[in-house]
């Protein structure tokens, strides 16, 4: 036995030498922690923290060191300063987060020059991924939910005419344009498009909705930024009795964020949205995700589609760390490692399209209904699998460049 003792030691030494050195991967998280959109930042941040907490052992012996900075207002300037310093001063190997499109847009030249990957957990303007080869997006583009909704609304919901109402800023225009493209392709007719004020303040939606109510389309496609606007929309819709008047409310899932759904009351019942995530989505990953979320954050706190995207973002990052053995110093290699990445997450099966570095995910038609236990729930009416960003596929406008 003793004879082979040294063999054991030698084997152990070899094994340890062959194993990677324990690396600490520095990750910069840039999200709006303060200001009018802080709740969006926090939804994603909670998902990040939860994933890191539960999966830290997966990348052992490596560790991640997360440095958080406030993205600031959606001007892009603060995000740019803060992220540039994360790269130059804190020497992060990867930056992630980014709720606002202007932030990501402002940073594209910086990360290209610095060769640091930017993994987007939210910002949804379609052509962002074209701006730099170092951008990977795990969240969505406005076209992901809106384009399939166009065909679905016409074919399955039976909307022959639709009115569009949107907050007057680029995501609103993108989303309604995407819907219109899909809807008209399927044979529907858009009656009017009403801009509803700036994204900064929640306006009184009543005048806009009243006008649509008077025009009597079959359906009303509404896009508003996630957050306080959604509640306002539902209130106005309910108060004006639009469902009774025969006008169905449809839109992307920003319309019924999971963490505000319970407050929306009866007005929300019957709303159909196209989304890639719902708390009630029936898959194993999502159940585990929800359980872990409630355990950590309480039973009154709900994840939403941004949290789900945040979760998958961290998952993709962790898988890249495993693949590259903790060595994320070459940004191009990190991006290569993430191209074609696929996994099952709370959203179902997701994949990063190697050609565009954008997400490919299932889009579900989701309807709000009242569950037997009295709470509001969402049920899946139908699923379009593996939806790509049609804007880039069809090369519409800026997506074509």
């Amino acid at each position, binding site marked *: 036995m003793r004879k082979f003792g040294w063999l054991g030691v030698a084997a152990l030494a070899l094994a340890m030498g062959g194993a990677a050195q324990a690396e600490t991967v520095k990750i910069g998280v840039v*999200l709006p*922690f*303060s200001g009018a959109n*802080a709740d969006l930042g*926090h939804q994603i941040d909670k998902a990040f923290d939860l994933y890191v907490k539960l999966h830290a052992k997966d990348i052992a012996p490596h560790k991640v060191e997360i440095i*958080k*900075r*406030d993205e600031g*207002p*959606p*001007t*892009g*300037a603060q995000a*740019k*300063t803060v992220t*540039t*310093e994360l*790269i*130059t*001063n804190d020497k992060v190997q990867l930056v992630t987060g980014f709720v606002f*499109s*202007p932030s990501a*847009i*402002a940073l*594209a*030249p*910086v990360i290209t*020059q*610095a060769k640091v990957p930017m993994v987007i957990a939210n910002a949804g*303007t379609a052509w962002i991924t074209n*701006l730099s080869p170092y951008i990977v997006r795990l969240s969505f583009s406005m076209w992901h939910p809106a384009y399939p909704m166009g065909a679905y609304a016409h074919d399955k919901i039976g909307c022959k005419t639709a009115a569009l109402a949107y907050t*007057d*800023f*680029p995501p609103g*225009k993108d989303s309604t344009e995407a819907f219109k493209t899909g809807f008209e392709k399927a044979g529907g007719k858009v009656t009017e498009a009403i801009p509803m004020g*700036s*994204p900064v303040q929640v306006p009184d939606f009543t005048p806009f909705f009243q006008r649509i109510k008077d025009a009597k389309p079959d359906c009303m496609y509404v896009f508003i930024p996630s957050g306080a606007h959604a509640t306002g929309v539902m209130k106005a819709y309910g108060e004006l009795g639009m469902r009774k008047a025969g006008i169905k409310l449809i839109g992307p899932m920003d319309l019924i964020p999971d963490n505000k759904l319970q407050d929306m009351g009866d007005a929300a019942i019957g709303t159909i949205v196209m989304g890639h995530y719902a708390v009630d989505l029936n898959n194993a990953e999502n159940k585990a995700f929800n359980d872990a979320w409630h355990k950590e954050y309480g039973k009154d706190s709900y994840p939403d589609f941004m949290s789900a995207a945040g979760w998958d973002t961290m998952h993709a990052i962790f898988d890249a760390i495993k693949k590259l053995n903790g060595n994320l110093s070459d940004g191009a290699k990190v991006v290569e490692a993430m191209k074609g990445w696929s996994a099952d997450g709370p959203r179902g099966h997701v994949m990063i399209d190697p050609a565009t570095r954008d997400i490919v995910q299932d889009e579900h038609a989701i309807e709000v209904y009242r569950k037997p236990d009295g709470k509001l729930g969402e049920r899946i009416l139908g699923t379009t699998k593996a939806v790509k960003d049609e804007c880039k596929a069809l090369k519409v406008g800026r997506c074509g460049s």
Partner: protein
Amino acid sequence: MAASETIGTSRTEARERAAEYLVGRHRFRLAEALPWLAAIGVYFIFPERMTFGSQVLVMVMFALSLDLILGYAGIVTLGHAAFFGMGAYTVGLAAARLGWSEPISGLFAAAIVAGLVGFITGWFLLRYRGLTLLMLTLATAIMLQETGNLRSDISGGYDGLPGLTFKPLLGVFEYDLYGHTYYLYVLAVLVVVFYIVRRIVYSPFGQALTGIRENVRRMHAIGSPVHGRLVTVYTIAAAIAGVAGALFTQTNAYVTLTVFDFDNSAKVMVMLILGGTGRLYGAFVGATVYMVLEDYFSKLSPTFWQFGIGLMLVLAVLFTPRGVLGVFESIGKYFSERKKL
């Protein structure tokens, strides 16, 4: 010694001192070199914070332009961001739509456009004062922003004009990731702008402005062309704010409609009041203190930093009523009084 002789001597002495004061006001004092030395010092001591440093200098220039009208002419406005925005968009649109990307000529263009807008709006609005002027200037800035959003096909709306590239400065100096070049560029422009502002302030024109601020009726009574003077200084201040905006676009290589935000106008005013109005250097102190503290608090607590800033503002008002510079002045006065004894 007869009492009248004593009085006569002190009266002449007083006159002499007054004359000396008036004549000597514009001479450069040693203390004035401090902020510039500090700015250059920052370049060497904190080379990793140049990106942030450039933004601070841009804000200093913006605050300086506000000081001209707020501190010296006494015009209180909530729409100064309009000129910042016009300058920012002049450079942005020139680069994005016209392919004009030479930085220094961009500054001139921005100054002219912003100054023009300042002249036109000033001509109409400067007949009003107080709350009325505040609301009118505020409404102007917002309406400019809304117009930009109406034609978001041109302006890029709130997603802005991305990926602006600018030719190297003077054909030689490139923009780099660490922002070194641009820091010195902004500092150089600030020096030029400051010199201009200083000359204005210590000129007879500047004196007239102070007169208008202190006692408008008197100025009218002595026949001073009050409205003309106000419009002139408003135009100049607008032009300078435009240059600040242009630098903002150049240093960020990006601009969105948020440059016209009310937040922007409010913030620069807060910075100026914090530093001290009507003293030129108040802009330096206020902008630097505010932005450094905002950055510091924001790193300390990304969620609750506003509490720190709010508390600082409250304490500043309670204990430094004439701005941070006011504190320095009090200290200076204290020591000079003691010297006299």
